[in-house]
């Protein structure tokens, strides 16, 4: 369910989840358009330039209000009791001893029948303070009958393994794809390479843990929620509580990250609302750091076996992929998009299976599927390049495609990947790489290497996104949109677009967002916030500017077509002596005036809309200790028109850092004997520290897409994450002459890979 909703929105299609979004991506028409020469982007004053965050002061001075900061009068603290067992029958739950404790105001039974993973919610209490709530949780009496379980996905494939779900076996087909004839393709190949690449489980671990504050005002529910999807949470709560959607308001002011783990309604939000209803008082439920490791998702594991065939000159002739993904009680991620779509290859066959285990369900994590897929595909491309004795970058260019290779076959509206390759290679100094992987480079026990990897993602935005611009006679300008700023700088880009269009400065614009009472916008995931919201704001602001020109024309007694805006005034083109200041014209509006903007459609029936990127890493590897250090990193992105260069660079640095961290350190460790996660904390689940992060240089290749929306802008959040672990892994390959083929590339794995190389030679 998660995957479908998320991915369809990510691909910019109008779906049920997209609510009021209008259909834009219709079925492909018979005649796809031919790629055309790229028009240039207009000259802007603010758009594409670095603008400091309009809310930066609020955040760094601690005034910004996060869900964790919300305190309401009479508010209770809710706590959730979770199953210690990976599989058990809940025989009985006795809340009475907890309810008898003074200060406990409400309690709920949450589990019925079976629990299927350690960490699943069983009961909840609300009490006057945290200590009382914790004591009460300990008093809840739960009688479990433990059942056999399996948390290791490889063991879960055995016929003898305990069945995780009642409705299906542990292994289920996830995805199938085929074009051409792979057997024929491999027969024609001069070189065939086959290898298996594994990715471990990466946990979102946002700085701000999940949480919700629920308050009933009569029949109306107000929920402060740490979410990437206020409208989705509202609709979900309305369904769960059986109340009409307009009776629920969801507010999210500031948020400390989500990375995909806060894309839909959380069960803790329902618990908060139910406890609040029972107690007749507001209730706050905050999850713990431990909860983040057991019950709010993660990037599922993958086990990808690739076979690739090529001609001597590097022309690809066949690809096959067999993947086993595991996402606990939920399906894993489909990782096939990169192999199906990145390179021109006539024959391609994919088979993917998911393996269920007694582990909490996965949730979408920053570029789900493509990130794992890029690690595998880009790894096998480099191993193929080595087998062909070819420059890995040359191999990628050789098989460059200008149209979708998958189901639609449509030409890309724009594709700046070639520019990403060119500018990125120049910035990293690609000529410094080892000509052959593992050729001696560096001194002593340290080897150096360079690697490249390619990114493909969606991120076109959602047609139908709404935003209002409100002009006030005192020259105030307000932009209102029911989107949410999950930390990426949405407030700032909205201000930049409105200021650009109205001839003002970004700091003069008042931004209102994060409330379901505001005009509809989609969830903030799938790299779609900017390409959905910015065009809607632009549309509203353009309408506002037109009105202002008409008002100025009346004051100047000229035709409104004769009015131009500039230098904070409106003037007549034909008689520049005639002009009116902004203040005068806004005053002439006489009352506040709203302008409704909408993100329009795009010709999805004739063009494919994607984002691209090429990442380059330089690493050093100590062949005695197995330690990898990243020395330098260049990330070249094609995300169309950049709206705010400063926050865009932050997005890229964040995406690279996350990929570095997942590539070298991060891994959830499960224990089959206890059925539990053994590292549910930030000491043993290791995230990159400041000492691990090198110089990261973002490059935007500035390709302007005239068809995608009125600003030519595309998404960026996920494209910056897709190839980052892969580029580092390929750099390690270039350094030591053997591909580690598994992330995170910890010292034991690097040392094992070196031994594999030794025994092969």
């Amino acid at each position: 369910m998660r995957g479908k909703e998320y991915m369809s929105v990510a691909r910019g299609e109008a779906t049920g989840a997209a609510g009021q979004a209008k259909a834009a991506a219709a079925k492909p028409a018979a005649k796809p358009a031919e790629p055309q020469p790229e028009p240039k982007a207009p000259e802007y004053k603010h758009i594409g330039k670095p603008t400091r965050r309009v809310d930066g002061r609020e955040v760094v001075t601690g005034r910004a209000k996060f869900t964790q900061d919300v305190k309401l009068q009479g508010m209770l603290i809710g706590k959730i009791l979770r199953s210690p067992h990976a599989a058990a029958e809940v025989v009985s739950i006795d809340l009475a001893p907890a309810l008898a404790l003074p200060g406990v105001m409400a309690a709920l039974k949450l589990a019925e029948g079976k629990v299927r993973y350690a960490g699943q919610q069983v009961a909840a209490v609300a009490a006057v303070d945290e200590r009382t709530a914790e004591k009460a949780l300990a008093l809840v009496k739960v009688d479990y009958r433990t059942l056999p379980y399996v948390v290791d996905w490889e063991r879960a494939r055995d016929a003898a393994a305990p069945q995780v779900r009642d409705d299906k076996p542990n292994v289920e087909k996830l995805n199938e794809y085929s074009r051409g004839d792979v057997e024929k393709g491999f027969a024609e190949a001069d070189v065939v390479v086959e290898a298996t690449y594994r990715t471990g489980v990466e946990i979102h671990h946002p700085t701000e843990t999940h949480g919700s504050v629920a308050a009933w005002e009569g029949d109306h529910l107000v929920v402060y929620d740490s979410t990437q999807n206020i409208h989705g949470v509202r609709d979900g709560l309305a369904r769960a509580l059986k109340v009409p959607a307009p009776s629920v308001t969801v507010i999210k002011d500031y948020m400390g990250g989500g990375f995909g783990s806060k894309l839909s309604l959380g069960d803790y939000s329902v618990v908060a609302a139910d406890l609040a209803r029972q107690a007749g008082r507001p209730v706050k439920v905050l999850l713990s750091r431990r909860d983040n490791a057991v019950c709010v998702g993660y990037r599922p594991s993958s086990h990808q076996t690739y076979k690739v065939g090529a001609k001597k000159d590097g022309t690809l002739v066949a690809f096959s992929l067999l993947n086993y993904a595991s996402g606990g009680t939920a399906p894993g991620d489909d990782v096939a998009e990169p192999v199906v779509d990145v390179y021109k290859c006539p024959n391609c066959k994919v088979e993917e299976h998911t393996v269920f285990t007694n582990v909490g369900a996965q949730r979408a994590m920053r570029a789900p599927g493509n990130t794992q897929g890029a690690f595998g595909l880009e790894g096998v491309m480099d191993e193929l390049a080595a087998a062909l004795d070819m420059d890995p970058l040359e191999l990628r260019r050789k098989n460059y495609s200008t149209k979708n290779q998958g189901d639609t076959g449509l030409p890309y509206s724009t594709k700046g990947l070639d520019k990403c390759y060119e500018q990125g290679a120049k910035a990293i100094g690609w000529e410094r790489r080892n000509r052959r992987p593992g050729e001696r480079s560096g001194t002593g026990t340290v080897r150096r290497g360079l690697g490249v990897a390619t990114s493909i993602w969606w991120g076109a935005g959602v047609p139908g996104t709404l935003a209002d611009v409100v002009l006030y006679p005192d020259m105030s300008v307000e932009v209102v949109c029911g989107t949410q700023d999950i930390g990426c700088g949405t407030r700032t880009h909205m201000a930049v677009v409105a200021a650009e269009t109205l001839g003002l400065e970004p700091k003069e614009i008042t931004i209102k967002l994060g409330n379901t009472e505001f005009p509809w916008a989609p969830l903030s995931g799938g790299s779609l916030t900017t390409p959905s919201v910015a065009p809607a704001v632009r549309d509203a602001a353009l309408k506002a500017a037109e009105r202002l020109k008409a008002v100025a024309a009346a004051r100047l007694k000229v035709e409104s077509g004769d009015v131009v805006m500039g230098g904070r005034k409106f003037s007549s083109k034909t008689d520049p002596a005639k002009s009116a200041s902004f203040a005068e014209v806004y005053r002439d509006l006489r009352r506040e005036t709203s302008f409704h903007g909408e993100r329009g459609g795009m010709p999805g029936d004739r063009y494919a809309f994607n984002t691209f990127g090429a990442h380059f890493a330089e690493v050093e590897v100590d062949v005695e200790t197995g330690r990898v250090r990243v020395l330098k990193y260049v990330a070249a992105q094609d995300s169309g028109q950049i709206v705010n260069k400063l926050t865009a660079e932050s997005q890229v640095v964040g995406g690279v850092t996350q990929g570095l961290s997942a590539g070298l350190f991060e891994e959830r460790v499960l224990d089959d004997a206890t059925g539990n996660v053994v590292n549910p904390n930030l000491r043993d689940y290791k995230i990159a520290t400041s000492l691990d992060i090198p110089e990261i240089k973002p490059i935007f290749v500035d390709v302007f897409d005239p068809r995608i929306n009125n600003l030519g802008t595309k998404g960026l959040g996920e494209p910056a994450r897709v190839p980052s672990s892969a580029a580092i892994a390929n750099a390690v390959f270039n350094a030591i002459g053997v591909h580690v083929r598994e992330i995170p590339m910890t010292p034991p794995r690097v040392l094992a890979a070196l031994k594999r190389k030794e025994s092969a030679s």
Partner: protein
Amino acid sequence: MREFRIAEPRTADELAALLNETREPVALMAGGTDLIDELKSGVEKAGLVVDLRKVEGLAGIAREKDGLRIGAMTRVAELAEDAAVARDFPSLRQAALSLATPQLRNVGTVGGNLCQRPRCWYYRDPQVVCRKKGGFNCFAYQGRNKYHAIFGGDSCFIVYPSDLAPALISLGAKAAIGTAKGDQAMPLEQFYILPEVDVTRENTLAKGQFLKSVWVPAPKAGQRSAYVKLKERGTWDFALVSAAVSGVVKDGLIAEIAIVMGGVAPIPWRLKKAEDVLLGKPPSEAAVRQAADEALKDASPLRENGYKADLVFAALKEAVLAIAP
């Protein structure tokens, strides 16, 4: 968090008397950087927490005629910044700078570091009752044991996580133990005990006792030392394997050497066999290879920690080569 009482004695005598009298489980709190976590998670079940921060005379570094005395309540950051430590005991300074993060070093103490509880993830899980907590099984033995012991494990396969302990032991440090009957001194090496002696604790401290200070003998002529810590990430990481080496190289040959490894055993692990191999040899890669191979004959890796054998060699090599003049 469980409820507990807190006591704040003002003198070492008051502290010793309090520890002697009390009938309930006690936890001594120095910097509290780790104890607070243990109390919160419920792994530490003390009814009385004794805060040592107000006890007079436990903090500070003092030059004594024949060595350096480091009070148990000396903050790790002070140790790392001390000029005498930097000059006479480079390995101790390197160990101090390698541990935790600047924030933790500003609060954490030398005594707390030397008496910390293990980081084994089964021990730290409040739901797991392992041998260390009075249960019957070591869950790491057949479970997830990437970070566990390759030497000295028996009924329990923790590694002792301190960075300061291997450095101090290699420098010949002695521990001063406070008791109600006065102070006792013992080599720091003997302060730590293996699981086979008592699986529920990591040192000899009995009821009523506390670590008061450590004393490091003044360096011998030509003594050099080094601490090499191999970890996964750049900072805030315990050692996968660490090597503390102190010795004297005379006329190109190793005349004296002490090697203590961290991250490989339930206690700081003296590599006596490697010392014996290296004595009389030049500090070279070949000699270290031979020494490591000899020492590693005693290793019994578990399913996921065999790589530590490679790291023993790598850490030892770097540390031994560093003491060559």
